C-alpha cells in the first residue's frame, strides 16, 4: 500500500475523530448508547437543582482522544479522575429488537397472533379440529364391557367409507347434471342431510345424537343408510306431550352408539363422552352463571308458557339454523354444564359477551390468584363459580370440581401453584379415575384458542397421570390419541417431542394389542389427515414397544387387499419408523423392507410413490450398511424409476439416490450410469421438488466410491452448470442451499480447481445473491479441499473476484466475510502479491461511515492476520495496528469489539515486543474501555489485556496494572462465564507481574463491600492470586482479616479460603495445620452460614490432602463437623455431608463409618435418616473398601452365622 494513501486515510480518520470530539454531545448515536440518568458520583453538587452550563458529560470519558495526551495526565494524577459510573450499552439483541418494526406493524397484534397455536397452523394442521373425541372404547382385558368394541368401530368405519363413496358419487352426478330436478328442489333439506353424515363421520356419534334429539325428537332414526335424504322434522312439529314421552333411549344410528345416560351423560362427572364444545356448541346448555342469567331450556319454556290455545310455530321452509360456531356471539357453552344433562337449543343472548367480560375473574373460590383467566376458560371452569354449596354435592361432583380446580391451577396458575396442583393430580390420579380426569383434560386440549404454554402444561399433566393410571387408561386411548396425534406434525420441535413421549408412554401403559386394536380402524380412515397422523403415531408405538412386535401387523396392513388406503398408511408407518429411530432399525431392516417390497409394484400410484419414499428413508437411516436387505427390491426399484414420470419419479429417484451409497463399488458405478440418464433428463424439470431430488441424487452419486471423476467431468458437469448455475437459483433459499451443497460434493470428487474455474467469474456478476452463492460455494470448497489445485491465473481471478464481491456487497454478510477469510487462508503465502490491495480495501472500509462495514473490515483483519504474518508483511501489520489503535474511540460497541479482536489477533501473531503501537501506549488506552458494559467489548478487551499481562507485563508500569485491577473487579460480575474466567486469570497474571501484596490489599478491601456478588468474585480472585503467587503470600493476610469482628468479612475470608484450597489442591498439605485453628473457630460458630462455608473449606482441604498424611487434622475436623449432622436447612446439611464425605476420602471409610454405625438403627427416625444418608454415600462411593469394616455380627442370631469368619483367616 502506498504511503500516501495511508496518510490520506489517517487524515480522514483524524478529521472524523476531531469532529466527534468537537461536538458537544459525544454520544452521537442515541440508538446504541443510552443517556445515563445516573448522578455522577464525582459531582459534589446536585446538578439537577443547580443547573450548570457545562457539559453534563464532563468528567466522563466521552471518547478516547486521538493523541492520547490527556490520558497521560490521568496517569500522573492517579485515581483522581477515575469515573465510577460505567458506560452502559444495551446488548445487540435488545438494540435489534425494535429495529425491524415498521410503522405499519403493531407489535401487540403480532404477539397476540403468535401466542395461539391455532393461528400459526397451516390449513392441513387445522384439520385436527375436524376430529372429535370418540366415545370410550371397551377394554377387552377388562370384563365389564362398557364402551364400544373393536368390531363396532370397524363396522362404523366401513359405513363411513361407504358414505364417502356415495357422496362422491352424488357429487359427480350433480356435476354432470344427472340428478333429478325434484331433488334440487328440496335444496335446504338435502343440504341438511348431506351435512349430517359428514359431520357424523368426524364428530362423535354422541354429538350427532344430541342434535337429533333437538330437531328430530319423535322420529326414529334410520339405520345405516345415511345417504338417503331424511326428511327433516322439527321438534316444533311434535306436541309437547310427545316431548315428555321421549326417554333417553338407545336410538343410535348404527345400533351401537352408547345410550344417553350411562355412556353419554352431558353433565356431571363420570361422563364418558366429553364433546368438544365447538362441535356441540349449538345444542348444549351453557353454564349457569347464576340462576338469573341462565338460558332457558325447552323444559323451562314448556313450564312457563301456557300450552292451551297456543301453538308452536313451524319454522319457515328453508330455514336453517346457524351451525358455524364462529358466527355465534359466544361460541362455546360448556358441555358439562348442567347436571340434568338435558338441554336444547338456546337463543344466544347478546348480553352474554358483556356479562362474561365483566365476570372474568382472576380469583376463583378455592383456587386462589391466577395468572390469567380467559373468556374461553369460562366454558370449562365456569362451574367453579356457580357458588353451589359443597355440602350438597355428591361425591362424584365434588371429585369433578376438585379436578377442575387443580387443572385450572395447572393451566392458569403461577409456577408454585402449578407445581403443587400437578403433584396432587399425579398423586391422586388413581383415586380420581381415568374417566373424570380425561373427560376434563382432553376437551381443554381441543380448545381452539389454546396457547403453547397451556398445551405444554396440559400435555405434561397427561404424561404424569399416564404413569399412575397405567392400564386404567385403556378405554381412553383413542381419545388421547385424537388430541395428541396433531402434536406429531406440529412445527415446533418440542411439541413433536412431547407428542412422541406421550404416545410412547401411552403404548407402554395400554400394551401393544390394545394400541393396535384402537388404531387399526384409523388406518383406512377416509380422511387423509387422520391416516397421516395415525401412521406417525404408529411409528412412535413401534419405537416404544420394539419393531419386531409390530412387524406382523405391519406386514398384514401393507398387503391389505381391502383398501389401498390401508396399504398406503402401512407403508407410511414403515417410512416414519426410520425417520424416528435412525440407525436403530438396522437389526430389523430386512423385515421392514420385505414388508413394503411388494408395494413398489402396487396398482395405486400413491402407494408406489409412498413405498419409494419409505425405501429412501430406510436406506438413509441404514447407511452405510444393510444393502443385503435391499437386494430384493433393487430390481423393481430400477425398473420403476424407468417407468415412472412426474411425481412418482421423484420418489423413485430419491430412493435410488439413497440406495446407491450402500452399494459396493462396481454396482454403484453401473447403477449410477443407468440412473444418470434419467437424472440428466430431469435437470430441466421445472418442478421444484424434482430439482431438489436430482440435486440430491447427483451429490449422492458423486460421493460414491465407484463413480469416477472423469465420468462426472464428462457427463454431469456441463449439464449441471448449465441448468443450475443460473441467477434464478440464487433467489430461492432452498435451491440455493441445495446447489451449493451439490457443487461442493462434486468438487470433492473432481477437484476444487475444476469447479472454481467454472464459477469464479460469477463473483463479478451483477446479482448480489448470485455472487453470494458463488462465494459460499468457493468458501466451502476451499475449506474442504484447500487451494492446491488452483493455478496462478485462476488464483488471480479468484482474489480479484473475491475483492470485487466483498467491496460491492450492499448488505454486510457473514458469508462474504467467511468467504474472504477462507480464500485468503487457503492461499496462504500465495496471497503476498495481493495483500497490499486487500489491506488498502480494508483500510478504506474501516473508515466507512456505516458501522457494519467497519465491523466487517475489523473482523476480516482478525481472520487474515495469520496469513499476513506468514507472508512477512510485518510492516503492513504495524500500520494496521496503528490504524486500529486510532479507532479505539469507536462508539458502536459491536464495532469496538471487532476492532479489539483485530488488535488482539495482530498482537498474537507479531508478538508483544514487535507490536505497533507499543504496548505501553496501547494498554493505557484499554483501561477505560474495560469499563464498557457491552459483552463483546468486554470479552475482547479482557482477552487482550490478559494476553499482555501474561506475556509482557513489564511494558506497563505497576501503577497502570493496579488501575486495571480496579476495573477488573467490576468485570468479575459479568454475566458471561468466559469474561469472568478471563478476568480472574488476568488477576493472577497481574499479581504475578507486580507481586501479590498490592493486588491482595485491593481485594481484601473489596471483601468489605456490601454487594454479595462482588464479594464472591473477590473471593475467587483471591483464590487465583493464591494459586499463582503461592499460598504463603496470601494466607497470612487473609487469616489476619478473619480477626475483623464483622460477619461479612469473616464469611468473605472463609469463602476465599474455599477457593484458595480448591485451586491449590495438593499444596494444601503444607497449610492444613495453619488454618485448622481458624476452621475450629468457624465450625463452632453460632451462625449457620459460617459453619456451612467452613464445611466447604474442609471439603476442599480434605480432597486436596488425600493420602498426604494429614489424617490427624482431618479426624479433628470431622469431630467438629459431626455434630452438624442434624442441621435441617438443605444448603447447610448438603455442605456438611459433602465435607464428611470428603473427609472419608482423606481418612478412609473405616474410621468414618465408626461414627455412622451408631445411628443406623437408632430408635428415632430423625436420627436414622441422616445417618443412612451418610451410609448410602459411603456405600455408593466405596462399597468395596467398606467390606473389612462392617461390624462383626457374629452372635447376633443363634441360628445363622452372621459373622464373616472368612475374614479372620490368617496364614
Amino acid at each position: 500500500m502506498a504511503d500516501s494513501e495511508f496518510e490520506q486515510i489517517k487524515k480522514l480518520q483524524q478529521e472524523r475523530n476531531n469532529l466527534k470530539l468537537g461536538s458537544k454531545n459525544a454520544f452521537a448515536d442515541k440508538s446504541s448508547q443510552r443517556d445515563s440518568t445516573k448522578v455522577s458520583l464525582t459531582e459534589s453538587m446536585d446538578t439537577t437543582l443547580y443547573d450548570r452550563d457545562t457539559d453534563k458529560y464532563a468528567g466522563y470519558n466521552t471518547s478516547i482522544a486521538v493523541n492520547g495526551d490527556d490520558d497521560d495526565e490521568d496517569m500522573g494524577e492517579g485515581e483522581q479522575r477515575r469515573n465510577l459510573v460505567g458506560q452502559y450499552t444495551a446488548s445487540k439483541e435488545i438494540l435489534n429488537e425494535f429495529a425491524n418494526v415498521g410503522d405499519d406493524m403493531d407489535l401487540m397484534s403480532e404477539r397476540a397472533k403468535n401466542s395461539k397455536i391455532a393461528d400459526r397452523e397451516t390449513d392441513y394442521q387445522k384439520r385436527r379440529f375436524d376430529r372429535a373425541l370418540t366415545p370410550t372404547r371397551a377394554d377387552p382385558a377388562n370384563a365389564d364391557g362398557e364402551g364400544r368394541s373393536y368390531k363396532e368401530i370397524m363396522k362404523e368405519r366401513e359405513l363411513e367409507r361407504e358414505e364417502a363413496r356415495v357422496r362422491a358419487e352424488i357429487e359427480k352426478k350433480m356435476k354432470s347434471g344427472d340428478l333429478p330436478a325434484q331433488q334440487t328442489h328440496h335444496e335446504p333439506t338435502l343440504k341438511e342431510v348431506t351435512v349430517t353424515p359428514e359431520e357424523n363421520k368426524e364428530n362423535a356419534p354422541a354429538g350427532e345424537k344430541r342434535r337429533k334429539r333437538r330437531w328430530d325428537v319423535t322420529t326414529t332414526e334410520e339405520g345405516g343408510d345415511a345417504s338417503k335424504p331424511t326428511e327433516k322434522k322439527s321438534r316444533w312439529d311434535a306436541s309437547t306431550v310427545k316431548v315428555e314421552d321421549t326417554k333417553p333411549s338407545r336410538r343410535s344410528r348404527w345400533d351401537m352408539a352408547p345410550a344417553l345416560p350411562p355412556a353419554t351423560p352431558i353433565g356431571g362427572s363420570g361422563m364418558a363422552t366429553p364433546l368438544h364444545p365447538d362441535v356441540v356448541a349449538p345444542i348444549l346448555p351453557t353454564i349457569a352463571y347464576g340462576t338469573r342469567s341462565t338460558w332457558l331450556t325447552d323444559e323451562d319454556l314448556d313450564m312457563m308458557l301456557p300450552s292451551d290455545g297456543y301453538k308452536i310455530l313451524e319454522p319457515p321452509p328453508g330455514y336453517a339454523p346457524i351451525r358455524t360456531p364462529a358466527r355465534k356471539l359466544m361460541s362455546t357453552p360448556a358441555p358439562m354444564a348442567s347436571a340434568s344433562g338435558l338441554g336444547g337449543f338456546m337463543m344466544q343472548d347478546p348480553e352474554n359477551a358483556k356479562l362474561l367480560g365483566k365476570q372474568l375473574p382472576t380469583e376463583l373460590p378455592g383456587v386462589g390468584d391466577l395468572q390469567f383467566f380467559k373468556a374461553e376458560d369460562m366454558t370449562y371452569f365456569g362451574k367453579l363459580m356457580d357458588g353451589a354449596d359443597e355440602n350438597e354435592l355428591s361425591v362424584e361432583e365434588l371429585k369433578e370440581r376438585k379436578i377442575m380446580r387443580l387443572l385450572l391451577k395447572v393451566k392458569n396458575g403461577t409456577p408454585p401453584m402449578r407445581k403443587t396442583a400437578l403433584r396432587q393430580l399425579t398423586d391422586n390420579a388413581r383415586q380420581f379415575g381415568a374417566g373424570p380426569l380425561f373427560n376434563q383434560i382432553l376437551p381443554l386440549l381441543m380448545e381452539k384458542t389454546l396457547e403453547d404454554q397451556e398445551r405444554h402444561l396440559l400435555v405434561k399433566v397427561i404424561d404424569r397421570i399416564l404413569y399412575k393410571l397405567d392400564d386404567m387408561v385403556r378405554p381412553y386411548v383413542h381419545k388421547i390419541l385424537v388430541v395428541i396425534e396433531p402434536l406429531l406434525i406440529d412445527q415446533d420441535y418440542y411439541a413433536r417431542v412431547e407428542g412422541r413421549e406421550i404416545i410412547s408412554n401411552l403404548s407402554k401403559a395400554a400394551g401393544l394389542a390394545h394400541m393396535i386394536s384402537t388404531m387399526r380402524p384409523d388406518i383406512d380412515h377416509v380422511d387423509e389427515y387422520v391416516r397421516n397422523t395415525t401412521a406417525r403415531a404408529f411409528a412412535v408405538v413401534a419405537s416404544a414397544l420394539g419393531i419386531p412386535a409390530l412387524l406382523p401387523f405391519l406386514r398384514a396392513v401393507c398387503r391389505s387387499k381391502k383398501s389401498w388406503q390401508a396399504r398406503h398408511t402401512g407403508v407410511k408407518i414403515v417410512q416414519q419408523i426410520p425417520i424416528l429411530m435412525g440407525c436403530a432399525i438396522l437389526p430389523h431392516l430386512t423385515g421392514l423392507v420385505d414388508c413394503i417390497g411388494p408395494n413398489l409394484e402396487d396398482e395405486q400410484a400413491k402407494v408406489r410413490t409412498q413405498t419409494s419414499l419409505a425405501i429412501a428413508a430406510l436406506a438413509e437411516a441404514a447407511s452405510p450398511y444393510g444393502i443385503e436387505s435391499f437386494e430384493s427390491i433393487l430390481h423393481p426399484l430400477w425398473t420403476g424409476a424407468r417407468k415412472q414420470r412426474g411425481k412418482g419419479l421423484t420418489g423413485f429417484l430419491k430412493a435410488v439416490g439413497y440406495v446407491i451409497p450402500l452399494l459396493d463399488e462396481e454396482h454403484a458405478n453401473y447403477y449410477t450410469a443407468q440412473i444418470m440418464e434419467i437424472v440428466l433428463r430431469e435437470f430441466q424439470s421445472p418442478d421444484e421438488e424434482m430439482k431438489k431430488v436430482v440435486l440430491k441424487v447427483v451429490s449422492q452419486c458423486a460421493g460414491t466410491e465407484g463413480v469416477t471423476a472423469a465420468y462426472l467431468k464428462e457427463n454431469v458437469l456441463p449439464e449441471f452448470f448449465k441448468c443450475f448455475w443460473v441467477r434464478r437459483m440464487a433467489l430461492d433459499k432452498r435451491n440455493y442451499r441445495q446447489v451449493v451443497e451439490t457443487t461442493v460434493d462434486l468438487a470433492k470428487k473432481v477437484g476444487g480447481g475444476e469447479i472454481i474455474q467454472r464459477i469464479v467469474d460469477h463473483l463479478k456478476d451483477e446479482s448480489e445473491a448470485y455472487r453470494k452463492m458463488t462465494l459460499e460455494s468457493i468458501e466451502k470448497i476451499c475449506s474442504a479441499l484447500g487451494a492446491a489445485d488452483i493455478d496462478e491465473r485462476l488464483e488471480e481471478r479468484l482474489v480479484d473476484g473475491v475483492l470485487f464481491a466483498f467491496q460491492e456487497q450492499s448488505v454486510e454478510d457473514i458469508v462474504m466475510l467467511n468467504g474472504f477469510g477462507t480464500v485468503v487462508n487457503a492461499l496462504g503465502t500465495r496471497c503476498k502479491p495481493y495483500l497490499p490491495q486487500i489491506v488498502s480495501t480494508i483500510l478504506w472500509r474501516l473508515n466507512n461511515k456505516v458501522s457494519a462495514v467497519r465491523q466487517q473490515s475489523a473482523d476480516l483483519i482478525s481472520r487474515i492476520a495469520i496469513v499476513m504474518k506468514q507472508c512477512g508483511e510485518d510492516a503492513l501489520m504495524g500500520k494496521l495496528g496503528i490504524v486500529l489503535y486510532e479507532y479505539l474511540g469507536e462508539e458502536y460497541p459491536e464495532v469496538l469489539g471487532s476492532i479489539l479482536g483485530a488488535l488482539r489477533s495482530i498482537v498474537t501473531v507479531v508478538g508483544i515486543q514487535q507490536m505497533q503501537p507499543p504496548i505501553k501506549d496501547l494498554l493505557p488506552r484499554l483501561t477505560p474501555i474495560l469499563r464498557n458494559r457491552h459483552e463483546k467489548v468486554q470479552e475482547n478487551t479482557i482477552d487482550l489485556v490478559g494476553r499482555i499481562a501474561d506475556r509482557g507485563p513489564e511494558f506497563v508500569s505497576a501503577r497502570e496494572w493496579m488501575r486495571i485491577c480496579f476495573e477488573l473487579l467490576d468485570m468479575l460480575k459479568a454475566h458471561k462465564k468466559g469474561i469472568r474466567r478471563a478476568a480472574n486469570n488476568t488477576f493472577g497474571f497481574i499479581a504475578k507481574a507486580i507481586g501479590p501484596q498490592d493486588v491482595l490489599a485491593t481485594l481484601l478491601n473489596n471483601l468489605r463491600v456490601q454487594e454479595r456478588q462482588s464479594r464472591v468474585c473477590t473471593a475467587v480472585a483471591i483464590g487465583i492470586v493464591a494459586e499463582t503467587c503461592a499460598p504463603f503470600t496470601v494466607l497470612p493476610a487473609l487469616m489476619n482479616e478473619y480477626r475483623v469482628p464483622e460477619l461479612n468479612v469473616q464469611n468473605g475470608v472463609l469463602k476465599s479460603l474455599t477457593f484458595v484450597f480448591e485451586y491449590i489442591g495438593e499444596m494444601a498439605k503444607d497449610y492444613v495445620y495453619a488454618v485448622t485453628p481458624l476452621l475450629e473457630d468457624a465450625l463452632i460458630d453460632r451462625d449457620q452460614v459460617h459453619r456451612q462455608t467452613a464445611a466447604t473449606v474442609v471439603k476442599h482441604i480434605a480432597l486436596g490432602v488425600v493420602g498426604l498424611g494429614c489424617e490427624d487434622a482431618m479426624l479433628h475436623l470431622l469431630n467438629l463437623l459431626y455434630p452438624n449432622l442434624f442441621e435441617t436447612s438443605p444448603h447447610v446439611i448438603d455442605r456438611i455431608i459433602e465435607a464428611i464425605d470428603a473427609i472419608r476420602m482423606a481418612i478412609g471409610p473405616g474410621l468414618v463409618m465408626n461414627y455412622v454405625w451408631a445411628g443406623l438403627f437408632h430408635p428415632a427416625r430423625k436420627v436414622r435418616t441422616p445417618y443412612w444418608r451418610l451410609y448410602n454415600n459411603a456405600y455408593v462411593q466405596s462399597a468395596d473398601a467398606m467390606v473389612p469394616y462392617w461390624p462383626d455380627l457374629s452372635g447376633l442370631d443363634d441360628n445363622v452365622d452372621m459373622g464373616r469368619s472368612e475374614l479372620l483367616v490368617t496364614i
Partner: protein
Amino acid sequence: MADKLRATQQLEQLQARFVGTGHADTTKFEWTSNIQRDSLASYIGHPPLLGYMAVGMGESRERLRVRFIEKMIQPVGKPPEKEE
C-alpha cells in the same frame, strides 16, 4: 414438602441403582443380607483374596468360589415372617 418429595424420589432412584443402599426403614434382615452378599461378592471379585482364603481354609479356589456364590442365597437365613 417439595424437597421431601424430591428426596424420596432421589432415594428411590438410588435404591434402584444400588441395592445395598438403605433408608430409615431398612430392617436388620435386609441390611445384614446385603452386608453378607457384598462381602462375598468382594471376596470373589478379588482373586488374590480368594486365593488367600482358599489356602487358609484348605480348599480349592474354585470350590470356595462356588461356595461363596451359593452362600449368597439367603445368607442370613429365611426372611422374617411378615406380620400383618
